[in-house]
């Protein structure tokens, strides 16, 4: 399976020989970490608006931002007058060379940083940012990777943010790779980027969206609200036989439950990329 995804360069092959590594199609499918160099930046908030009852969408202008790949994150550092600082990671909902970036931040009940970002931040405020970060949980168009494999995205709650960036990059590139997004949200009001997701489904790049509601469904929804089950997962993801690349992002519990089920359903563990954001 991995043969057709073998990196084109000899350097990569030599590295594999020096440290014997099991055949690994997921890494082979990645170009090397060709992501812009991380650095510290100051971002100016140009817009802050409610995304869901519990989350805010922030648009930031970052003068010297080097651009970012779809799926990357950044760290936000807040510093109190007494010097105490707290740093938290947030996925970037946008991608590309633009110096305008979008975050969507979920408020954690006992958080040190997210309540400020969700409730307090206003247009004109400045934030200390470190990024772009992480070359692992990224997606690139098939024209760059040569990968013909379909892509399954699986989001729990605010874990949809990097997957929205990936689905948007897929649409912007008019990429012919079949995509499917399975998105678990509490209620219809808790769906991030609801309008944009509808637009992506209608775009020319193939994307199928499957929503699962865990607390309350829209009227007339065919299934009652419930956490996703293994059976529901199996019914809503690209079958293992089609060898999809799978990206899973959500709370640690969600990601580990889903990743375990995917392996039980026959998906190659090396084809499953995960990003856990911790509690609840």
């Amino acid at each position: 399976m991995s043969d057709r995804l073998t990196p084109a360069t000899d350097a990569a092959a030599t590295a594999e020989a020096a440290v014997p590594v099991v055949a690994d199609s997921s890494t082979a499918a990645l170009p090397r970490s060709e992501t812009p160099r991380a650095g510290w930046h100051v971002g100016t908030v140009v817009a802050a608006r409610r995304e869901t009852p519990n989350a805010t969408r922030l648009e930031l202008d970052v003068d010297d931002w080097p651009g970012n790949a779809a799926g990357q994150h950044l760290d936000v550092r807040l510093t109190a007058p007494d010097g105490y600082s707290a740093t938290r990671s947030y996925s970037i909902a946008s991608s590309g060379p633009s110096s305008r970036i979008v975050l969507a931040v979920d408020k954690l009940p006992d958080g040190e940083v997210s309540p400020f970002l969700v409730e307090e931040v206003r247009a004109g405020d400045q934030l200390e940012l470190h990024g772009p970060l992480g070359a692992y949980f990224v997606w690139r168009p098939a024209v760059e990777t040569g990968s013909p494999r379909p892509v399954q995205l699986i989001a729990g709650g605010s874990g949809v943010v990097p997957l929205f960036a990936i689905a948007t990059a897929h649409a912007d590139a008019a990429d012919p790779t079949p995509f499917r997004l399975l998105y678990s949200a509490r209620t219809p009001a808790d769906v991030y980027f609801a309008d944009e997701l509808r637009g992506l489904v209608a775009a020319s790049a193939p994307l199928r969206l499957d929503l699962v509601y865990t607390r309350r469904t829209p009227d007339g929804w065919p299934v009652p609200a419930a956490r996703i089950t293994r059976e529901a997962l199996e019914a809503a993801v690209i079958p293992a036989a089609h060898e999809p690349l799978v990206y899973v992002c959500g709370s640690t519990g969600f990601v580990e439950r889903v990743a375990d089920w995917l392996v039980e359903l026959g998906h190659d563990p090396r084809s499953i990329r995960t990003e856990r954001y911790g509690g609840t």
Partner: protein
Amino acid sequence: MQHVDGNALAGPLADYFSFDVTMARARCLGCGSISELARAMVYRSGAGTVVRCATCDAVLATLVESDDRAWIGFSGVSAVEVRRG
């Protein structure tokens, strides 16, 4: 506190390494499995960060930071594969 994964190391380690360490593959001294650091389990507290093997849970690495320096340990890593170029 709930653990996260090695993706979260990208920021802290970018201050000390000139490449994205989370894409480097490390071999666990405990079980021999080889995996990108992004796939490891990460436990953070006020004292510092502990990185554990996703396969056998052995400690791979630790990171402790103070105001003016950092201590980075790779006590459970026998080799690291870094892509060149």
